[in-house]
């Protein structure tokens, strides 16, 4: 842990003046409770992560993949965390911190709904009122997650401006926060946004690599040669890497969504990928300087990925820094490879990964020969949320690893 407002030139606090006091208050609270463990914050956080969240999550040997690649492959099973993804580590940490800060209300934005559901669960657990902003287009696309939030007692406020997706929801949440900073904490969902979010979210997620490092030594008496994690904003990524950062022989691979292509359409302002680390340029987005998918004017592009959770035009500033420094390898795989990997892991290991996670396995498949003898892959979440997308996207492609889709067509209707 550490408190830097910057990582090299990245990071910082590019936020409206009205939010600065909240950011400063939060920075102070982060330092007091998270870093200096005042009032036993860290113990309570650890206890709740264990009892409510289900930590530690296992580090599991993947028998079939190990045989297939002739490499020891281990899975860090964040899919087993309550809610089905690593997101709860952060949401629980922030809601608890808000409680320590005396805040009375939680707000968050969500796109695919994963961060929203994690936040709603954490807020219910800690008895805090919670409001989630979500674009109306996303609400229509992600009904199960909307319902999960609602039954966890959260208000879900549809955002009707613009295209009704994540970016409008972020703006709307910022707007709420700048009206209500005194009583409200805004739970950001990844290692993005202004300081202290990138550092704080990383610290909350670092438990992934702290456990994995220990578990790997216990099970194999050594450290891995490589750690793979998918990267959207980069929170599971930083979480999976952090404790290995000082182990120079451990290769760290941030696997971004290559989407359908790495090229961009400047005229339409559309990037058919979400590979900010690989193809983005330095810029300022949502409060931080980082790598951003943008056109030559600096307008943010619409990103695209088969996986909603990776579909973001920015990336955590620390990750951008570590890539520039050469400590982290920024790589990417495309939609088809991710789908193929989704089916491969499901079928061969009995673990249905999130489509986000599947990207990491896509890279493993492409490069297993070059990753060394012992590879840890972070299974950032489970794929139940993605079934509908997978049926649709698999049907449109010729995916070798997929089951025959006839049964679904026969029975007809949606999932």
């Amino acid at each position, binding site marked *: 842990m550490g408190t830097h407002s910057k990582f090299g030139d990245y990071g910082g606090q590019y*936020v409206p*003046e009205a939010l600065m006091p909240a950011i400063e208050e939060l920075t102070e609270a982060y330092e007091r409770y998270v870093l200096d463990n005042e009032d036993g914050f860290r113990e309570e956080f650890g206890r709740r992560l264990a009892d409510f969240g289900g930590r530690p999550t296992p580090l599991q040997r993947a028998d079939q993949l190990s045989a297939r690649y002739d490499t020891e492959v281990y899975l860090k099973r964040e899919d087993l965390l309550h809610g089905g993804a690593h997101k709860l580590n952060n949401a629980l940490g922030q809601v608890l911190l808000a409680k320590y800060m005396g805040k009375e209300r939680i707000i968050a934005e969500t796109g695919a709904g994963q961060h929203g559901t994690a936040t709603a669960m954490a807020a219910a657990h800690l008895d805090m009122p919670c409001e989630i902003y979500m674009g109306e287009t996303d609400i229509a696309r992600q009904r199960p997650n909307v319902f999960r939030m609602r039954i966890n007692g959260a208000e879900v406020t549809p955002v009707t401006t613009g295209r009704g997706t994540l970016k409008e929801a*972020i703006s709307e949440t910022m*707007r709420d926060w700048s009206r209500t900073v*005194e009583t409200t904490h805004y739970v950001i969902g990844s290692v993005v946004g202004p300081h202290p979010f990138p550092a704080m979210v990383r610290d909350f997620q670092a438990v992934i690599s702290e456990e994995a490092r220990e578990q790997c030594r216990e099970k194999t008496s050594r450290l891995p040669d490589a750690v793979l994690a998918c990267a959207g904003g980069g929170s599971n990524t930083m979480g999976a890497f952090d404790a290995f950062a000082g182990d120079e022989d451990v290769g760290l691979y941030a696997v971004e969504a290559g989407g359908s292509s790495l090229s961009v359409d400047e005229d339409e302002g559309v990037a058919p990928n979400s590979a900010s680390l690989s193809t983005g340029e330095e810029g*300022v987005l949502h409060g931080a300087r980082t790598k951003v998918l943008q056109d030559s004017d600096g307008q943010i592009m619409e990103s695209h990925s088969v996986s909603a959770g990776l579909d973001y035009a920015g990336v955590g500033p620390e990750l951008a820094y570590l890539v520039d420094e050469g400590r982290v390898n920024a790589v990417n795989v495309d939609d088809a490879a991710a789908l193929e990997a989704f089916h491969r892991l499901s079928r061969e290991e009995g673990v249905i990964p999130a489509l986000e996670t599947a990207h990491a396995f896509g890279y493993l498949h492409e490069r297993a020969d070059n990753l060394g003898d012992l590879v840890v892959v972070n299974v950032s979440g489970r794929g139940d949320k993605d079934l509908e997308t997978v049926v649709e996207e698999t049907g449109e492609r010729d995916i070798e690893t997929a089951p025959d889709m006839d049964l679904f067509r026969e029975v007809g209707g949606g999932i």
Partner: protein
Amino acid sequence: MGLEQAFDDGPAFVPYLAAGDPGYEESLAYVEALARGGADVVELGLPFSEPIAEGTTIQEAIVRALDAGMTPHRYFEFVEDLAVDVPLVCMTYYNLIYQYGTESGPRPFVERAAEVGIEGFVVPDLPAEEAGPLRAACDEFGLDLVFLVAPTTTDERLERMREQVSGYVYVQARLGTTGAREDVSDHTARSLSRIVDWDVPEAVGFGIKTGGHAERIVRAGADGVIVGSALVDIVAEGHANDDPTEEVADRLEAKARELKEGALRGAGRLEAESD
């Protein structure tokens, strides 16, 4: 640096519009109408795709302008095409300033802005802590850099802004993002009292909608009133109803006049209205 002078003749009326909303030609006509209506400074928004500091009204104006093809390059042409003689302040987000030109950093953008006659900047996502490079470029080209002061801004941060601010200071009358509101918060007087000894004029914005509001704000001590959403509403409505550009321009001019007169009344320079 000329912005300060715009406040010399008594309370200034500082309207905001997004450049290119809902289209290039209409927008030219609208800005010119505001000038006719009595604007002392115009804050001319350069639309950015992620306007995190704006309320819904202005966010939608920005979407309209972007959809109609507004870009930084077009924006500078727009400024050149404008037939107004009030000072112009460019209001935009830092990424557009940072990316402009081949060399990275704010300098090329500021240089070009100076060329077309822009006199200052308001950058809502650039706090004083990160403003060094832009401040330097402004100094180099003789432009002002306006900062926002919020009701929640700490004394420590006020100091940091005071060191860097020029032109005027934008006092946010209440918490929240931009957006027209019926009430005028009494945060205003309190906020003004905190910066009363600064040597730049104090313009108050956020939530000002009528001549009456403007009057009370100036009476509370403001050197000027900044009005955005109430004007953008007129543009939006005209666009929604497909009204002729001149009609919408006339409405904007009338609204500008109402606001300017309110401000003057607040300063005792016109007879007070009962409101």
